[in-house]
Every structure is written in structure tokens, then in C-alpha cells.
């Protein structure tokens, strides 16, 4: 009789498989998940944090801009021994232009130029708050790929947690405006909070999960030697032989930018990659009419000495797969709409952190309550007195 009652109680209390999976997935890596979510959230606004920290990261005005050539010359004059490799406009109009360079000692340096005045604000090593946060979030500073795969594999955990969570949460669509219960114990409160966070951040969880899984797969494909991006045409050997080889015989950057915008109308130049070798073209990249693509999706490759257009890459003309390659980053980083989209990503990033933390809190509370019940039960008392 006692056995039957016990079995019926256990059956009633048996959790569905989805619930067990949800608990296992979330809890076993909850601290790592929280850490990755938190570092990712900070990384979204790492540029802005640098902007707040030091004037060298700032533009003195957002209404005026000097040309690319003037900024390039200012950097080269300030650091004549440096070899400049590429130049990127600040991520937002209020940020300084970054010019990447190597010093004669072979060290990677970044020169910051005020795009409004053309004055050099200063320089730094590659190791800045921004690069630190991004690398920490991206691959935990590990060499090789294993840190990257570990972090991006959390996308599978997020996706499975979202799917099992929805299966467990009956009629979840009614929960969007359910106020968390207060005064009925912290377990219930945190349980309600967990559900509320989960519902409101569901789209964000799915977005982060899918883009992370994409990065995971993309790296595998890349390691197999498959490049999903269309390759830029090199400068033709004939063109090289005919032209003056010295880099100071390159056409002025502003002239090259004008050629690029002529070839790709509507191009708003955001970065210029100087040729890595004499046979490589100069690459002028930026935003054009396509929405939700990273800057290098729209690109014009030019012979830097003659200005001849070698290839044009436009997001609209890409295959669906290549277009997605360039869309994953803006979706994951939230930088497609300026500061406001970044702040939205930060808000939902914090919700995601809250989700990981509240899930763990619920589990801890539930376990504590269950343990205290067992300790208070008559069976436990009789066992203890035997």
C-alpha cells in the first residue's frame, strides 16, 4: 500500500524529458554561459567605453570630415617609420579613425586620427580594452581554434535550452505580461523572473544561438580550405610591370576613393586596406544600399598605381550564402543601427545574463527546498533514529 502511494507520488513528480534536458544543459555550463554572455554584452559597447575613457578615441566633431589622404598623411608624418596597413573610419561618427600599422620592431600599432581636423590624437598597441573584450568573448585568448569552438558551441546549448524551455513552459504565450509573484518565496519569484526574461529575450536568444552555430560551422568550412567570400582580383602582372612600383607612387587616396565610388555608386567608404604585396590590389570598402551587411561586403579593388578597377563586390549581387556570411556579424554584434541598436543589444544581452543567473538560482532554491523537505520527512526521521 505504502509502495503504491510512493510510486504514484513519484510518477506525479516525474519531470518530462524536456525539463530534465533544460536543467542539464543550462546548469552544467551556466557559469561559462553567463561569462560569455557578459563579455559579449560589454564587447558590444567596447568602442563607446574606450570613447568615454580617453580623448584619443574621439572625433572632435561629427559634422565635418577631412579626406582620407589628409588622415593618412597626418599619421605617416607623425609616425614616419611605421608601415601603414589599413585605415578604418570610427565605428560611429563620434569616434576617431583608426590606422593600423606595424612599427620597425614588428609590433602591431593603432594610430588614432581625428577625422574632423585631421590631427593625430595618439597611438596604442593592438592590446586595447576593445580588442581585449572581443578576444575574451570570442575565444578566451586561447591559441588555435579550441577556445573559439568552445564558445560558439554554446550556441547549441542556447538553442536546445530555448527549445526545451518552450516545451516545458505550457501556454508560454500567456506569460509575457505575467507579473512575478512576490511574497511567496524566492524560488517562485526567481522562477517567474526566469520565465519572463526567457519570453522577452527569446528572439535574441535564438539570434545569438543561430549566429554562434553559424560561426562554429563557418570555421570548420574555412579550416577545410573553402572560402565563402568571393576573392578579389589581383593586379595583373602586365599592369605591375608597366607601373611604378614604389608605394609612394600610389594615386592619392581621395582619387582612389573617387574611382571606387564611381564604380560602385552610393558607396560610403568605411575602410581601406592597403596592398599586402605589390601584386595585391588596394581594397576600398564600405556601406552601400544593402542593409544588414558588414562594411567589407561592398568593396572595390583597384590597382593603386593606375586607379584601374579590378573587381567590384556588391552585397545585392551576392548569392544567398555569401550574403548571409556578411549578415551574421551585424546581427550578432548589433552594430547595424548605431548607438541605439548597440544599446538594445546590451539590454537584451543583460537579459540573457539574467536568464542564465536566474535559471541557476531557481535550481539552487528548488534543491535546497527539496533537501529540507526530505530532512523533515517522517521516513528521514525514522532512518536517522534507527
Amino acid at each position, binding site marked *: 500500500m505504502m509502495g503504491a502511494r510512493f510510486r504514484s507520488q513519484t510518477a506525479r513528480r516525474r519531470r518530462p524529458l524536456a525539463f530534465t534536458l533544460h536543467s542539464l544543459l543550462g546548469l552544467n*555550463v551556466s557559469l561559462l554561459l553567463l561569462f560569455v554572455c557578459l563579455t559579449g554584452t560589454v564587447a558590444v559597447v567596447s568602442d563607446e567605453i574606450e570613447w568615454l575613457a580617453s580623448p584619443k578615441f574621439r572625433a572632435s566633431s561629427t559634422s565635418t570630415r577631412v579626406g582620407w589622404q589628409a588622415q593618412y598623411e597626418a599619421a605617416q608624418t607623425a609616425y614616419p617609420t611605421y608601415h601603414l596597413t589599413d585605415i578604418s573610419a570610427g565605428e560611429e561618427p563620434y569616434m576617431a579613425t583608426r590606422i593600423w600599422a606595424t612599427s620597425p620592431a614588428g*609590433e602591431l600599432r593603432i594610430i588614432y586620427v581625428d577625422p574632423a581636423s585631421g590631427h593625430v590624437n595618439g597611438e596604442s598597441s593592438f592590446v586595447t580594452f576593445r580588442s581585449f573584450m572581443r578576444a575574451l568573448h570570442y575565444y578566451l585568448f586561447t591559441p588555435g581554434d579550441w577556445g573559439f569552438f568552445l564558445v560558439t558551441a554554446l550556441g547549441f546549448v542556447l538553442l536546445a535550452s530555448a527549445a526545451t524551455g518552450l516545451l516545458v513552459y505550457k501556454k508560454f504565450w500567456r506569460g509575457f505580461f505575467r507579473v512575478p509573484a512576490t511574497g511567496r518565496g524566492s524560488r517562485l519569484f526567481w522562477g517567474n523572473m526566469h520565465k519572463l526574461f526567457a519570453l522577452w529575450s527569446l528572439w535574441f536568444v535564438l539570434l545569438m544561438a543561430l549566429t554562434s552555430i553559424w560561426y562554429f560551422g563557418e570555421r570548420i568550412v574555412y579550416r577545410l580550405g573553402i572560402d565563402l567570400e568571393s576573392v578579389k582580383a589581383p593586379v595583373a602582372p602586365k599592369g605591375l610591370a608597366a607601373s611604378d*612600383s614604389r608605394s609612394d607612387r600610389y594615386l592619392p587616396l581621395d582619387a582612389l576613393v573617387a574611382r571606387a565610388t564611381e564604380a560602385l555608386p552610393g558607396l560610403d567608404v568605411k575602410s581601406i586596406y592597403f596592398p599586402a604585396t605589390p601584386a595585391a590590389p588596394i581594397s576600398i570598402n564600405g556601406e552601400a544600399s544593402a542593409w544588414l551587411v558588414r562594411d567589407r561586403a561592398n568593396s572595390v579593388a583597384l590597382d593603386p598605381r593606375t586607379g584601374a578597377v579590378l573587381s567590384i563586390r556588391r552585397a545585392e549581387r551576392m548569392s544567398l550564402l555569401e550574403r548571409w556570411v556578411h549578415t551574421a556579424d551585424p546581427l550578432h554584434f548589433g552594430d547595424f543601427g548605431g548607438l541605439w541598436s548597440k544599446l538594445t543589444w546590451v539590454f537584451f544581452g543583460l537579459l540573457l545574463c539574467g536568464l542564465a543567473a536566474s535559471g541557476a538560482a531557481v535550481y539552487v532554491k528548488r534543491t535546497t527546498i527539496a533537501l529540507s523537505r526530505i530532512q523533515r520527512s517522517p521516513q528521514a526521521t525514522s532512518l536517522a533514529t534507527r
Partner: protein
Amino acid sequence: MLDYMGRWKWFNVLMVTLVPLLCFLVFWKPYFDPASFGTTLLGPEKIGDWVVVLGTSADYPLAHGTEIKWRARFCDGCYEQLRSSELALGDAEGPLWPATALSGTPYTLAASLATPANFPPAGLYIWLTVEDLNGLRYRRSWFVSR
């Protein structure tokens, strides 16, 4: 406090503390520090119209069957006048093993080459081949190990 993670507790704790900290100090930060050109320098020597120095930090005599990073530095403004530049190992007569292109900026040009399991009887030589913009190729070698 973290006992709720059971046997996964230490995995989580290590992944968010020691692993990033150690990897930052041992791998990440040093990667961006000024690079040493090497303890062994070969050159400067003339190759074509240009002057070059090779360097490596590998211990001498060179070990068999190991990957060795070689760095190269051309005279100021010279690298821009080359269409390609590559390093290969061989004997006194010429390269015997596949060449690797030098890559990087003029200040960080480098290539990694695997030393063979058996060195040629007359000794191991490193060969630098450069090609100018007209397609003319120039070669230079240095004796590196017996």
C-alpha cells in the same frame, strides 16, 4: 555556492578564470609584443638590386624534422619592388624542398619551414628567391646547418 553544477563545477570555474588568464599572459599578449628578429642573423646580403637580412630564433645546430620560423627584412622601400619572395631549404646546388612565401608587412615578413629528417651530406642551405615586377627572378643561399 557553485556546487549545483556538480562535476561540471571545476570545468566552469577553470574556463572563466585560469584559462583566460593564463592564455592572455602566455599566448595572447606576447603575440602582440615587439617581435624578436632572431638570435641568428644571416646577411645583410645583396639579392638583385636589394639588400636583405634573414633571422631566426631557432637553436643551432638546427634540429631535424622541426618547424622553424624565419624572418626577413629588406632594405627600406625594397619589399614594395618585389612581386614575390619565398624561402626554401635545400643543398648548395639549389632548393630541394617546397618553398614557402614570405608573408606580413615589410617589418614582419616571415615564413615557417620544416627542416628535413635527414640533412643533405654537404649541409643544409636556406634559399631566398625573389621576383621583381618584370618577372626576373633572383636567388641567394646561406649555409645553415651540417
